[in-house]
């Protein structure tokens, strides 16, 4: 059962590292996209709101796997070629960004209108009141659901195996399909499961930490 255990751990470790960095890099993209969408959602400029809505509908209603396939197989046909990991980050990031945008938007809606009015009344511009008053409070209000999105992203990141990125699940598949049959199936499954749990628990802990540090009483 423990045959080639070191070799298995080595393989899984490689996948583990890939999963972690793909997750966090695409989450960074998602936060950027989401913040932009949220700002567009509450913008006084109607076309900005329409565009944000269109984006959200598109990326929220198309399966992630389809998004990845369209990028990886479709876009090179129209002359846009990139390495598969670039498509992985973009696919995960743009898809998750739609959800981050909706989450931030509900956070913004939870902030009393008086906060924005007070901000405007001391002469802050629309952008300044958003950046200094509304978004910091909105963000604090939605740290927990943003954490859930991050954990969902960890699991969604397994889909990028379909475009050839060797993350954790892909690595497990390789180990299971080893043509010399060197690895015990159950050991690989347990190893993969434990790896995902470690990532998820670490994120949960991190989110709670951020939540506690950002807490303020109303």
């Amino acid at each position, binding site marked *: 059962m423990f045959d080639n255990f070191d070799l298995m751990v080595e393989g899984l470790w490689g996948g583990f590292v890939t999963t972690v960095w793909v997750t966090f890099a695409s989450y960074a993209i998602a936060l950027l996209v989401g913040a932009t969408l949220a700002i567009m959602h509450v913008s006084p400029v109607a076309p900005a709101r329409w565009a944000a809505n269109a984006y959200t509908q598109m990326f929220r209603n198309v399966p992630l796997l389809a998004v990845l396939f369209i990028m990886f197989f479709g876009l090179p046909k129209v002359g846009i070629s990139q390495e598969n990991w670039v498509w992985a980050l973009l696919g995960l990031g743009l898809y998750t960004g739609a959800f981050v945008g909706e989450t931030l938007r509900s956070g913004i809606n939870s902030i009393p209108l*008086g906060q924005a009015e*007070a901000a405007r*009344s001391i002469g802050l*511009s629309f952008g*300044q009141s958003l950046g*200094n*008053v509304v978004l910091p409070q909105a963000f604090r209000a939605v740290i927990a659901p943003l954490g859930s999105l991050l954990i969902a992203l960890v699991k969604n990141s397994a889909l990028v195996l379909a475009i050839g990125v060797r993350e954790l699940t892909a690595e497990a598949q390789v180990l299971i399909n080893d043509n010399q049959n060197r690895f015990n199936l159950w050991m690989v499954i347990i190893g993969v499961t434990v790896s995902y749990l470690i990532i998820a628990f670490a994120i949960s802990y991190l989110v709670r930490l951020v939540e506690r540090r950002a807490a*303020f009483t109303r």
Partner: protein
Amino acid sequence: MVETQPKTPMVTITGVNKHFGDLHALRDIDLTVDESEVVVLIGPSGSGKSTLCRTINRLETIDSGEITVNGSPLPAEGRALAQLRADVGMVFQHFNLFAHLTVLENITLGPIKVRRRSKAEAAERARALLDRVGLSDKADAYPAQLSGGQQQRVAIARGLAMDPKLMMFDEPTSALDPEMINEVLDVMQDLAHEGMTMVVVTHEMGFARRAANRVVFMADGAIVETATPAAFFDDPQTERAQDFLSKVMTH
């Protein structure tokens, strides 16, 4: 209070109308507020006094008419409007202190971001203002840790930190417990004595009598009567005002 100074209009409101759906919230409002004048708007709920107050810094838009502040018409949107709002302090019924910032940060945000003051300079001025409203020991507290009266005094300090030409108070004591009303009114009365131009929407008749240069009585979206406090409270001319006063002055 300051009768000797030459009077220049700080706010002129001419022929202003405003609708909320079917409700005619402001009807042909004409009103001038002179420099260093304290104008108190009173009237029953729904009479449009708060709405009128909020139109002066364009937190409410108007359907027709014209409003000028310090000689120039209200800008529609954008940077010019932000600039105007910076010159017009506003104190809200529900304080609206920035919940995620300390008292000091609440007061310095505007001066730093809008007036481009240095952090140190803004903080020094903020501490002086906190001292003035009697809250120098609360600089590092968060709004939720303060009583209503304390929050409202911080809100006044926040407005004053912008060196406004005009301060507006939209029912500043209506959300306060009775024992906290006076600490806020005292600060406002001091301001009035120092010659700050003030527009005050309030139900505090005692304050109106003591601090106002002029009382403006509104009902159903229109200005019904304008008079000095003494004339208004002792000898109201219109039936609406007599009726209103008989209801609020019985206790």
